[in-house]
Structure formats: structure tokens, C-alpha cells
């Protein structure tokens, strides 16, 4: 069938099951938008306020579902506006396909209007990228892009398509949808051209001997500790993690990206570790004789001091990406493969064990030493807000954060029990990530009302006054599509995390962090067509949050908190648990 490049793009999106697209039109993607117009019954396109918001929305959609997120933008500023979003997804290994238009082939390299070398700009922040100038290459390139984004260690892939490659025609061979979406194409596909691929096992490089050896290490260990990260969620291995940890009764700690991979209330989940992790978990790292790192890349926010990290432990790493071995920390043994497959092989190879004394020791550290914030009825305390959100929104809620103090408070107290229910920019630390990501997550989970007229799966966007001001323009997107994202703004009138460091390390010289903005959040919400609330104590917050949960559309709640609230405890960069600050 003879189709234009833009039509081919639409067909491949449908074939790949990628029928939700976030984007922003422009001159160099006019043919693609024309094809989307023709396919609007099948492909749902969401226009955001800004391309960055679209990139974060596609990312949030991918984090919430595990499917590949798709973002579309025009050339020049359209593609440069995607950059922060793509880099955010790259750092957190989120599968994303970014499609950009570029000027026509005859205008390439001539500093044409809205021309930029997108491929060069995005090379270091993508798994791979393509520049398609010939329509004949388009279908295969798009299919390859989806495969690369969603295989091995996942990540973003960008395809830059010249405008003439979108408009030119060529012969198109349809394929049966891998996800059997029931798209019209599936029926028309010729026999033997199915796109359904067998499970990808090419990344599994571990051997039965590796499994036997690691099982032996686990059997010998007296004080073993599991450290799990976002890789467990990427690999959909929460059940396997649960099975291993319970069979071995092995205490576990996690990174911010691992939040929810094991329930917060699991008896073997000792919670967040690292810079703002619990003292008990950080002491456990100090005394462990074996660390089993699962889908955790030894980032500098957890492996703060690479020379003195887990100083008494043999370190065994399970990761899908060989280049993560010995990158930041030299490990003693590594199992390379998809975490789900590695754990499935490891579980039957280990004997049930108990580590009662070791677990009791960690619990003793927890009850005797862990930082315990004080509640208040009169002023809003960050931990009380997060606790109330977790309680009122329930365990099915998705919590999406921006970046800063509120992010850490959210990570500490969010009480997640399921994977993909805590979405945060862990690696890049992108302020302004939250709103776009929350919109993408809301699109992914829909907004059905359940009992008591509350949303079944509310999406709660926790942000700060600094982060929120970066991309609050996306409120218009929430209102336009009636996406009932509940935004909770921790307003301390300062850039709290930077201020906390200025307090600790710069003698309180608050350079450019005292914002004292005069934004009237309730009015701004109303101006956008959303609902605004303001809370100054926990009772007011609970009332407002409950009302927002029962409301119809997007809402936000300004929470006034003290500017000197700090995230505690804290290990300064490069430090160890011995340097931990708790007051």
C-alpha cells in the first residue's frame, strides 16, 4: 500500500500499540499532524502547554504503565524543548520514543528557519537516535526505535524526520500488532508478518555456575542486606524480589527509584537508604557482610562514599547492563541479565533461611536512633502532609513528585505498596518534572470514580513552590482534558533544598534562594479553570484534600510550611552513616 511518511508513522504507532501521544505541533511536523487528524479516533493526541511538559507526560505515562511513552515535537525549539525531558528519561531508564520533525532535505544545513541539529544535541541523552531523510527507511526505523527503547536496559530513542520524508510516499508493509490492539491493520496483515517477538533473553549472560556461586554466598552470609533500585520495577520483578527476600528472610533497603517494588509495610523492607534514608538502613549497610544489589546503579546519592561504602560486605550485583558493573563501586561478583530472569533462577537455588538476630539489630537501630519528626496541630509539618496524602488517597494512588525537599519527604513517608505508584525524577533531578509526568500518569490510569465518589486511582502531584513555578503552565492541559491531577504544593517561600545546604555548609548565606513570591495560588488555579485550596494546618489540609479527591477536575492545594523545615536525616555528599545529621 502506497502511503506518505506521515501515514506510515500513524500506522506504525497503531501497530506498536502506541496510541497515546503527547506533543506540540509546528511547521516541520505539519504532515504528521495531518495524519493524526485522519487517525484521531485511534491515536489520542494530547497537546501540552510546552514541549517539555509533553516529554515529561510521555515519561510519566511510561513510568505508570511500563509501556513506551511517545512524544512528538517540531524542529528547532520544539526539539530543544524536549531535551530536559529526554535526559530525565535517560537517567532513569524510562522507555520513550521521541519523534521530531526537521526541515526539508533541501534546507538542511543552511541555518533554515527552526532548523537545529537535533541528532547531535540528543546523542548523549538517548539510547540511540536516528535522522530519517528517506521515506523508504521510516517504517523499519520506527519499529527498531520501539524495540530499542523497550529492550535490555530501557531508555529514550529519538527519530528526527525531515519534512519531505513525512510528505513523500512509499510502499508500506503492515505488521500485526504485537499487543493485538484490535487495530484495523491487524486483520489486513499478511500471514507470517507478525511483529510479536519472543521474550528477549539476549541480555541474560549469567550462567548456572553464577547462580550456584551467589546462592553459596547467600548461604554463608550472617548479616546480608538486599539493596534494590528502579531496575526491579523496569524488569517487572517485584514478585520475584518478594519471593527471594521472604525465602531468605533477608532485610532489604531501597533507593528512591526502587520505592514500591516491595511494599513499605513488608516485614523485610527496611525502607529508604542513602543521603536521606533511615539511619537504621544506613547502619545496616555499614555492618552487612553481604550486599545483594538488585537493579541499583550505586549512584552518588546512595553510594555516597565509594571508598567506604558497605565497608564490611562482599558486594554482589544483579543488573541488566554490564557497564554498570565496577562503574562507581567495584563489586565482588556480578550476575548480568534481566532481573526477573536472574531472580527466577536464583530463588530455587537458595534454601530458606532466617536472620533473626541481624533483623532484630536493624529494628533496634530503628526504634532507638531513627529520626522521628514531631507532629503539630497548629502548623503544617511536611511528614504529616505526606502521611495524610497516603492515608486519604490510598494505596492505589499514584504519587508523582517534583524535585527538592518535598520529593525527599514524599519518598520518606509515601507508604507505597505497589510498583509504579511513585514516580520521580531520580537521576537527573529535574525540577518541573512533576506536573507533566502527573498528567501522563493520569492519562494512563484514567479517572474513574469509585466508592464514596472518590477517584479509584488518584494521581497526586507533590511539588514545591520552586518546582511548581517552573512548569505550572501545564495547568491548562489538565483543565482542557479534565485530568483531575491533585497538586499539593509545599510552599515554604524558599528553594528549600538549596537553602538547607546553605544553612549547613554556607553559614546561612541564602544567595538567591529566598523567593518570597507573591503568587496567589488559589487565584491562579481559578484563573486556569482549576480549583484552588489553601491550608495552614493539618485539619485544613485534610478537609481540602478530601474535597479535592471528591471533586471533578484538577485541583491544587497550597500548603504553607516553615522555611526552615529540613529533610532529615541527612548524610552529606561523600559521607558515611558516621556523618549523619539528625537534628
Amino acid at each position: 500500500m502506497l502511503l506518505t511518511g506521515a501515514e506510515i508513522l500513524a500506522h506504525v504507532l497503531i501497530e506498536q500499540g502506541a496510541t497515546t501521544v503527547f506533543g506540540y505541533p509546528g511547521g516541520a511536523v505539519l504532515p504528521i499532524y495531518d495524519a493524526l487528524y485522519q487517525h484521531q479516533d485511534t491515536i489520542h493526541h494530547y497537546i501540552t502547554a510546552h514541549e517539555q511538559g509533553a516529554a515529561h507526560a510521555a515519561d510519566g505515562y511510561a513510568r505508570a504503565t511500563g509501556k513506551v511513552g511517545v512524544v512528538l515535537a517540531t524542529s528547532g525549539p520544539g526539539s530543544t524543548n524536549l531535551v530536559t525531558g529526554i535526559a530525565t528519561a535517560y537517567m532513569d531508564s524510562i522507555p520513550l520514543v521521541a519523534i521530531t520533525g526537521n526541515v526539508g532535505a533541501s534546507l538542511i544545513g543552511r541555518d533554515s528557519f527552526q532548523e537545529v541539529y537535533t541528532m547531535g544535541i540528543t546523542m548523549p541523552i538517548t539510547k540511540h537516535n536516528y535522522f530519517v531523510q528517506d521515506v523508504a527507511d521510516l517504517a523499519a526505523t520506527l519499529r527498531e526505535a520501539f524495540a530499542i527503547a523497550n529492550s535490555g536496559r530501557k531508555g529514550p530513542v529519538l527519530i528526527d524526520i525531515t519534512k519531505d520524508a513525512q510528505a513523500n510516499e512509499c510502499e508500506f508493509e503492515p505488521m500485526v500488532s504485537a499487543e493485538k490492539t484490535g487495530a484495523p491493520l491487524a486483520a489486513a496483515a499478511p500471514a507470517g508478518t507478525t511483529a510479536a517477538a519472543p521474550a528477549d533473553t539476549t541480555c541474560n549472560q549469567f550462567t548456572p555456575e553464577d547462580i550456584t556461586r551467589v546462592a553459596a554466598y547467600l548461604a554463608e552470609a550472617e548479616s546480608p542486606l538486599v539493596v534494590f533500585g528502579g531496575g526491579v520495577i523496569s524488569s517487572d520483578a517485584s514478585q520475584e524480589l518478594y519471593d527471594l527476600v521472604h525465602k531468605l528472610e533477608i532485610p532489604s533497603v531501597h533507593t528512591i527509584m526502587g520505592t514500591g517494588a516491595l511494599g513499605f509495610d513488608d516485614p523485610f523492607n527496611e525502607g529508604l537508604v542513602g543521603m536521606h534514608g533511615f539511619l537504621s538502613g544506613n547502619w545496616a549497610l555499614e555492618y552487612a557482610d553481604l550486599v545483594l544489589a538488585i537493579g541499583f546503579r550505586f549512584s552518588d546519592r546512595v553510594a555516597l562514599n565509594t571508598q567506604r561504602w558497605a565497608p564490611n560486605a562482599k558486594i554482589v550485583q544483579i543488573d541488566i547492563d554490564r557497564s554498570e558493573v565496577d562503574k562507581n563501586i567495584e563489586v565482588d561478583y556480578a550476575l548480568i541479565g534481566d532481573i526477573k530472569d536472574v531472580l527466577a533462577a536464583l530463588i530455587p537455588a537458595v534454601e530458606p533461611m532466617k536472620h533473626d538476630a541481624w533483623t532484630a539489630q536493624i529494628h533496634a537501630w530503628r526504634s532507638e536512633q531513627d529520626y522521628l519528626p514531631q507532629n503539630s496541630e497548629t502548623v503544617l509539618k511536611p511528614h504529616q502532609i505526606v502521611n495524610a496524602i497516603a492515608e486519604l488517597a490510598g494505596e492505589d494512588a499514584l504519587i508523582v513528585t517534583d524535585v527538592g525537599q518535598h520529593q525527599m519527604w514524599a519518598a520518606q513517608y509515601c507508604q507505597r505498596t505497589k510498583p509504579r505508584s511513585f514516580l520521580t525524577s531520580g537521576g537527573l533531578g529535574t525540577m518541573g518534572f512533576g506536573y507533566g509526568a502527573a498528567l501522563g500518569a493520569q492519562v494512563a490510569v484514567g479517572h474513574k470514580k469509585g466508592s464514596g465518589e472518590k477517584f479509584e486511582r488518584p494521581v497526586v502531584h507533590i511539588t514545591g513552590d520552586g518546582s511548581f513555578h517552573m512548569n505550572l503552565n501545564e495547568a491548562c492541559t489538565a483543565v482542557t482534558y479534565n485530568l483531575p491531577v491533585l497538586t499539593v504544593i509545599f510552599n515554604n517561600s524558599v528553594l528549600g533544598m538549596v537553602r538547607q545546604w546553605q544553612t549547613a555548609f554556607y553559614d546561612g548565606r541564602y544567595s538567591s534562594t529566598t523567593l518570597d513570591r507573591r503568587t496567589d495560588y488559589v487565584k491562579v488555579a481559578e484563573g486556569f479553570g482549576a480549583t484552588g485550596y489553601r491550608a495552614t494546618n493539618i485539619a485544613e489540609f485534610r478537609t481540602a484534600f478530601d474535597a479535592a479527591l471528591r471533586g471533578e477536575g484538577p485541583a491544587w492545594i497550597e500548603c504553607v510550611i516553615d522555611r526552615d523545615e529540613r529533610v532529615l536525616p541527612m548524610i552529606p555528599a561523600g559521607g558515611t552513616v558516621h556523618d549523619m545529621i539528625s537534628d
Partner: protein
Amino acid sequence: MTSDIFEADAIAEAPRLQTRHTISLLVNNHFGVLTRVASLFARKGFNIDSLTVSATTNSAISRITVTTFADEQNLQQIISQVDKLVEVRKAVTLDPENSIQRELLLVKLVIDDNLRSTVVDVADAYKAEIVDFTTESMTLEIVGKPVKIDAFLEAIDSYTILEMCRTGVTALEHGDSVLE
């Protein structure tokens, strides 16, 4: 412990032995592939001592030979990072004991009547070829292992070098083994 920044200070580590390694890459002969390899080296902080790109028997594949100074751990990082590039089909280090490594040097020296014969002597000793000469200059060509080129440059150190150019290392494994 650091006292002032969002990143950890570089923590003092015992210096590791950095040696020169030769890495051979088979890459897809696609537009931009050299940029991808060079950009990866740059952003990961790996150095490039020399780099050559050449055709192979397969027109769809090019061979990139990179020499780099690295310790053993860094070398493994380089290989596993480069191997992740979609356009890279194969990434290996070549054992200097088990590979043929060659480089070509062109060097243009200032000469006069007195110097001419001594330059010819040095060139003969190193089997360098005289490829161009005028009354004031002489250009020599030498092909050999990088250490031989280094030694030759040392031998002509007392002369005035007008210009020089080294191709960088190109290398193949000994015997009938083939990188594919």
C-alpha cells in the same frame, strides 16, 4: 567529607597503573558513527590517544582503532560502554603481544649541507624512507610499531622539525583469527 557542594568531591584514591591500550571496534558504516564513539569517550572522560577509521572487506562495516591510556577497571568500562552503542557491532581490546600494530610518521626536518648526511644515517638506521627533499628540508617516512616511531622521534630530537604527522595506530590480531 565534602563541605560545600551538591556533588561528592573526588575522593582520593591510590593512583592506578595507566597503560596504553589498543581497542578495535567494528561499527556500522553509518553517518554519524564516529561522532557517537568520540562523544561517548568525551562524556565519560576517557582519553583518546589516537584514532583511525578504515574500510573493511564488508562495505557496510568500518573498523575504528582507538588507543587510550587507562587502568584495567577503566578499560573494562570503556569496552562495556562502547559496546552499548547500537552502531557498534564488536568492541575488543587487542593484546599487544598477540597483535600487529602499525603507525606511519611523516616528518619534515631542516637540513643544510652539513646535516644532510647525518640525517640520512639516522634514516638508514631506522629504515625510514626519504620521500622528499630540497636544499633546506628533508621529509622522512617511517612505518612501525608505535614504540619504534617514538624511538625514531627521540633519535631525531636534536634536529629542527618543521612539521610532523602521525596516522595513529592501525592493528590486526596475529594468525588467522578474524574480528566479526
